[in-house]
């Protein structure tokens, strides 16, 4: 099955793309997808970064199982500041 991955901010810069389609196996979780991406794009392994996972514009847990045509975003730390 296929999922669409969008990249923002530092991850977009690291991967050099705003969006891509990935083939994944049934039962893959978002955490699995992230590991696979890090293997293909070693620069995605930003030291110390803490990510949230979003599927179809909702935050999900790392063990969330993906479905065909899902839109997946790995969310780096948001703007913060005080």
């Amino acid at each position: 099955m296929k999922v669409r991955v969008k990249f923002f901010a530092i991850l977009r810069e690291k991967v050099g793309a705003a969006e891509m389609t990935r083939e994944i196996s049934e039962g893959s979780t978002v955490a699995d997808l992230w590991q696979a991406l890090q293997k293909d794009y070693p620069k995605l392994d930003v030291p110390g970064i803490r990510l949230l996972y979003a599927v179809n514009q909702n935050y999900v847990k790392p063990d969330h199982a993906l479905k065909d045509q899902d839109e997946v975003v790995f969310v780096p730390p948001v703007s913060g500041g005080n």
Partner: protein
Amino acid sequence: MFRVTNDPIDLQDLLDYVGDPAAGAIATFIGTTRNNNEGRKVIALDYDGYPEMAEKELRRIGADAQTKWPICKMAIVHRLGPVQITEASVIIAVSAGHRDAAFAACRFAIEEIKKTVPIWKKEVYEGGEVWIGTQTGQPLPGRS
């Protein structure tokens, strides 16, 4: 009114939206680009965002505020792209019958925005640039 935009934000639009005959108080918050950060001289900020989800999260914040405090209306607009010194990156406006609720909901909104709304800030300073929140590996507030 919950949206992201690439254009300058007009506070009056938000005030017009939240205006309400039953409101005795309107609290607003404007986040602006500051010329310095942690000792660095800042030239501008550049915001990236995931617009559909950002607007969804902003609506969620508005709905949460409505359940927590007796407010009339809330509006949040966040800008994306480059934001120059003194310009607004985010404006929140909240109307309520009384000021306690207006202040509390306004404060809540900006704290939530900085935790969960998928908008990222790149600081362009003299000598470099950095994605804020990413540079030091600091823990991400909220869900993880």
